[in-house]
């Protein structure tokens, strides 16, 4: 665990070692706030609720989260530093977990800056803080699932752009299958399977501020599955 923390520190520092990290955060805040206040017309709704903000989150994260995870392995592979990293006395899971934690921390820091919205809401009226806190926790679960997928895909390529696009595509499909089968109601069980697999359907409860243990288990499973695949893929380098 100590070793995972070493990797965590290195990766988190790397996010802020260039202006890119800050630019990313500012860009995210601009886009998400503009979406909430202007596209969804917060000021005409007459409600101090962040429901719209969180409802848009799976789609906003679709573009932002793969950008956080894309470089984590791809850059190491491209620069060759992966060879040094994996010949240090660290276990593969420690490296994978450390990288994941750093990406998670960066996402959490980004979300931290969005707390200006609930603060503004509290100033304008009496929002239900329980719902907002619940939604933030849910958003972290959703983002973590995206990160685990993106981190795994980053380990498959040495090209960051490829990692970004494939991650986006995979997450997009996992979101879409939560909606599309509604048109295919005739297929019955397939619909419910798709709904269960989709990252989106599990987020619906979250936007209402409900943290259902089934959703938590689902997101935790996605995270564990992709981190596991990631570890196995890193170990498999030895046999290529």
């Amino acid at each position: 665990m100590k070793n995972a923390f070493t990797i965590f520190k290195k990766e988190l520092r790397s996010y802020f070692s260039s202006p890119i990290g800050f630019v990313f955060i500012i860009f995210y805040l601009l886009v998400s706030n503009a979406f909430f206040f202007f596209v969804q017309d917060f000021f005409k709704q007459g409600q101090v609720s962040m429901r719209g903000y969180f409802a848009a989150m799976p789609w906003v994260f679709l573009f932002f989260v793969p950008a956080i995870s894309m470089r984590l392995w791809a850059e190491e592979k491209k620069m060759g530093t992966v060879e040094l990293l994996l010949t240090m006395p660290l276990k593969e899971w420690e490296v994978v977990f450390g990288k994941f934690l750093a990406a998670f921390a960066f996402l959490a820091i980004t979300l931290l800056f969005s707390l200006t919205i609930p603060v503004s809401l509290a100033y304008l009226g009496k929002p239900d803080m329980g719902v907002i806190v619940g939604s933030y926790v849910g958003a972290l679960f959703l983002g973590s699932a995206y990160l685990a997928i993106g981190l795994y895909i980053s380990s498959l390529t040495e090209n960051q752009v490829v990692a970004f696009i494939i991650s986006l595509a995979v997450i997009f499909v996992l979101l879409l299958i939560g909606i599309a089968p509604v048109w295919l109601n005739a297929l019955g069980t397939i619909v419910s399977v798709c709904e269960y697999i989709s990252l989106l359907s599990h987020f619906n409860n979250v936007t209402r501020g409900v943290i259902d243990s089934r959703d938590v288990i689902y997101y935790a499973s996605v995270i564990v599955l992709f981190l596991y695949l990631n570890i196995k893929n890193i170990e498999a380098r030895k046999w290529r």
Partner: protein
Amino acid sequence: MIHVDGLTKRYGKATAIDNISFTINKGEVVGLLGPNGAGKTTTMKILTCFISATAGRASINGHDTFDEPLKVKEQIGYLPESCPLYHDMDVATYLAFAAEARGVAADKRKLAVDRVISDCDLGKVTRKLIGHLSKGYRQRVGLAQAMVHNPSVLILDEPTSGLDPNQIRDILALINNLGQEKTVIHSTHILSEVETTSDRVLIINNGHIVAQGTPQELMARSSGTTVYLTVKGADAQAQLSGAAFVKQAEKIGEGKDGFIRLAVQGADARDVSLDLFKMAKEKDWLVSELKAETASLEDVFAKLTRG
């Protein structure tokens, strides 16, 4: 100590190394020599547990690279080919990271980093970003990270590639210094490097070890000394070819005024320049050049790796 036994690595159908065995004793500096693609890097990647062998075993200080990779990794310092580093980190931060990741205790880390900074002469650039450093400095940072935990075994893949002659001399001096207390295996295709630094040389070609020994032993396996003689005299080439101490006298050029240039090899591979001088004196030949050249490691290398 490094022990390698019957090591084989295949990438798909291509065999990178084929049944290689060698032992490197504690405190020895061994040069791994071979043309590009000979299998030097593959051997090192297996020793450092980055990849696994298809067959055979390798161990470092008694720890098997397959069964105990963490133990092996603790014992070694590794500088991969082309010296990959994090360009967005400054030198001191990077070395502190390397020390932490390689398990140097928190209270000894600063000392360890300061030691390698002075050993590798990095004092002037500690706060510079690695991406902004020259190739020579980067190489030294690469060496520094390999030594920061004071490992007993150093594995250096082409530590001098891309450096200028002064930098090469510095790095070689450093390796020489390290060799006094550590086991070092370094690869190169520059032969003069192993002549000056290595106790022993392993020459590998097409995945096989084709020769090993001290640089002197290897040179002795060459064709010996060739004497270049530019001479003018009646029938000189024929008379030389007939002399008892000459194995071969080959005409390699024609000078002005009837001089010819010959490459003469002695009968028992020894330097025959004195015999040639005496013979020329007896026969009253005119001599304008008499030069003995001992085969270098380059010749041995070329002979062994070109078949």
